[in-house]
């Protein structure tokens, strides 16, 4: 039996998703074959353990991230889940909305999204939204919009959805980087209550590193595409009769690239700037927080003093044989401001950490390359 189930899983993994899973919204359910019964869950009971990214989505995201101004590339991921793997089979970019008219642009985006989904359904593409993607530069992807959108998605979507972040600067260096994330449960709890006070952070044990959890990501090229790519990247057979392997020039459509061997550490300066900028922002934010804390402390002290004073008065009144004055209204006179949200400062810290990490990676790779070049010179 165990062998049979693993066989079924293997079979399921090789089947393309659209045929494997009947659309949940279809009025007539097709009978699920027995071999697939274990891996198809209509009720979304199997939790997601990995994300599988289709080659087309990879290229689409790279294209959009490169063309969008700044790091504002933002789009939706479409696909299906099968046996714990979220298969991302398509994606489309969302229009870049400027913040001039928020309500109008939100509506426009919603209309755009609906229209696009309908159109894709017409040509047999997957049309269920399973998350979104976001472009970023130098490893920093923490921001308010990402957290907000993902929180909404995690509420609404089946399985909560994922966010895939794509690092533009790393890709330009020759390392196409895609990572999948979702919000952690404690963060989501705190987010739902909209409470990011110190006490709540302690309760949920939240630091910037526990906001998001990473989901393992796999890249998949379907058979047709890998065959096509294979025939493009393999060298064309040498036309001349003398087929010395050393002479076979690579006339393939995709020649090997060596951009990674470039010694230059191009964007280190920009990276350092960003670190400093993020640190400055953090300092300002901390200043604001400290100011609000002090204000709270002051107000509290005032309230406490007033209550103590009233108590003293009451003591003297009781001593004098008079009825004591009520002391509730005194504390009500003072409005203690609510504790400020620490979400911003947490996100900023996350950003600093990410910039630091990317800086560190660039530096260490640079170091290795330098020593390699040096060894070459030495001998």
């Amino acid at each position, binding site marked *: 039996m165990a062998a049979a189930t693993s066989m079924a899983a293997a079979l399921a993994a090789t089947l393309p998703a*659209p045929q494997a899973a009947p659309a949940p919204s279809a009025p007539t359910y097709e009978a699920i074959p027995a071999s697939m019964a274990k891996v198809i869950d209509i009720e979304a009971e199997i939790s997601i353990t990995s994300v*599988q990214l289709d*080659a087309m989505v*990879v*290229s*689409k995201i*790279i*294209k959009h*991230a*490169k063309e969008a101004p700044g790091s504002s590339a933002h789009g939706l991921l479409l696909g299906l889940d099968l046996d714990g793997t979220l298969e991302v089979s*398509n994606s489309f970019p969302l229009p870049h909305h400027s913040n001039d008219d928020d309500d109008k642009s939100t509506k426009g985006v919603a209309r755009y999204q609906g*229209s696009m989904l309908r*159109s894709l359904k017409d*040509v*047999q*593409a997957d049309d269920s939204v399973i998350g979104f993607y976001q472009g970023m530069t130098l490893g920093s992807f923490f921001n308010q919009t990402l957290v907000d959108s993902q929180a909404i998605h995690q509420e609404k979507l089946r399985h909560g959805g994922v966010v895939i972040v794509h690092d533009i600067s*790393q*890709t*330009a*260096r*020759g*390392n196409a*980087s*895609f990572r999948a994330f979702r919000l952690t449960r404690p963060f989501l709890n705190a987010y739902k209550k909209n409470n990011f006070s110190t006490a709540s*952070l*302690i309760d949920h044990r*939240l*630091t*910037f590193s526990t906001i998001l959890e990473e989901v393992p990501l796999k*890249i998949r*090229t379907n*058979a*047709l*595409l*890998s065959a*096509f790519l294979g*025939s493009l*990247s393999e060298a*064309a057979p040498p036309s001349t009769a003398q087929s*010395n392997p*050393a002479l076979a020039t690579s006339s393939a459509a*995709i020649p090997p690239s*060596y*951009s990674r*061997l470039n010694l230059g*550490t191009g964007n280190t300066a920009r990276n*350092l700037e960003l*670190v400093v900028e993020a*640190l400055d922002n953090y300092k300002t934010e901390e200043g604001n927080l400290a100011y609000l804390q002090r204000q709270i402390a002051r107000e509290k002290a005032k309230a406490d003093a007033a209550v103590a004073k009233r108590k003293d008065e009451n003591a003297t009144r009781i001593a004098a044989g008079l009825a004591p004055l009520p002391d509730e209204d005194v504390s009500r006179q003072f409005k203690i401001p609510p504790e400020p949200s620490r979400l911003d400062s947490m996100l900023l*810290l996350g950003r*600093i950490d990410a*910039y*630091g990490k990317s*800086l560190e990676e*660039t530096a260490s790779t640079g*170091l*290795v390359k*330098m020593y390699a070049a*040096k060894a070459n*010179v030495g001998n």
Partner: protein
Amino acid sequence: MPLGPPSSAVFIQNAAPGFTSTPGRTPTSVTVHPVALFSILDHYLRRTDAQERVIGTLLGTRSDNGEVEVRSSFAVLHSETEEQVAVDMEYHRTMYDLHHKVNSKEVIVGWYSTGSNLNTYSALIQNFYSQETAPHQAIHLALNTGVEEGQKAGVQAYVGSPVGVTPKPENCVFVPIPCELRFNDAERSGLDLLTSNLSNAANGSFTNPSSDLELLERSLVSVSEMLDRVLAYVQSVLSGEVKGDAAIGRYLMDALGPSTEDLEKGGFNSHLQDTLTVSYLANLVRSQAEVSARLALVKVS
């Protein structure tokens, strides 16, 4: 970089644009970005049983020298029967409008179809797209998926030109024009990611390697292999097995000539210090951030 099986075809440039009524420059060459190709292949995979081929719209830009750059593509519904061919024009317009919202620079440049047979229906569709792209000429990409036996995967680009005494939409000569795969740095790394694991991924899926060092190692290994190849060639020339090619010799001279002298002159040390400082700073910043985040969780007692 040619995109397709080598052929001996000569590309005829229809240099006299007077015979068409289009004032725009005739496209002389086509470059295709990978994303467009991938979308076409995906569309082909998702076709229904009844469909022999799929068609869709190509979006991109035109440059002044007659080069057409295909940046992306989208699928269009169509049906072909013995009697008639129908393209869902409304669908095409909707999709174009949607794409236009995201990227306003890309315009319709032509259409694609899979398979490499060009028939009367192709001429009719070409006629339709010519109206869409007017005053410019529409291009047609025929992508052979290589699924059918005996056919090689590849892409051919054509422009249509009318034929016959009286121009009729169903009469058309498809004139081949050169077609190349084009990618920028970012797309290049994406392709590397996809092609690097083609050989060892039996089931077509692999995990995302994300360490710069791993990739560096891979590049170094491939460079070392190439050096071995060159060495083998040079040695075989020296021993007289193979007749040396002067052109290759000069290329080798140029490639191996550059010295790293300025690295010697103290440049190395100063750069090393810079890099180490940056690395130290990065680590310092990260640990400070971590400490700061933890301190926020400490209860004031």
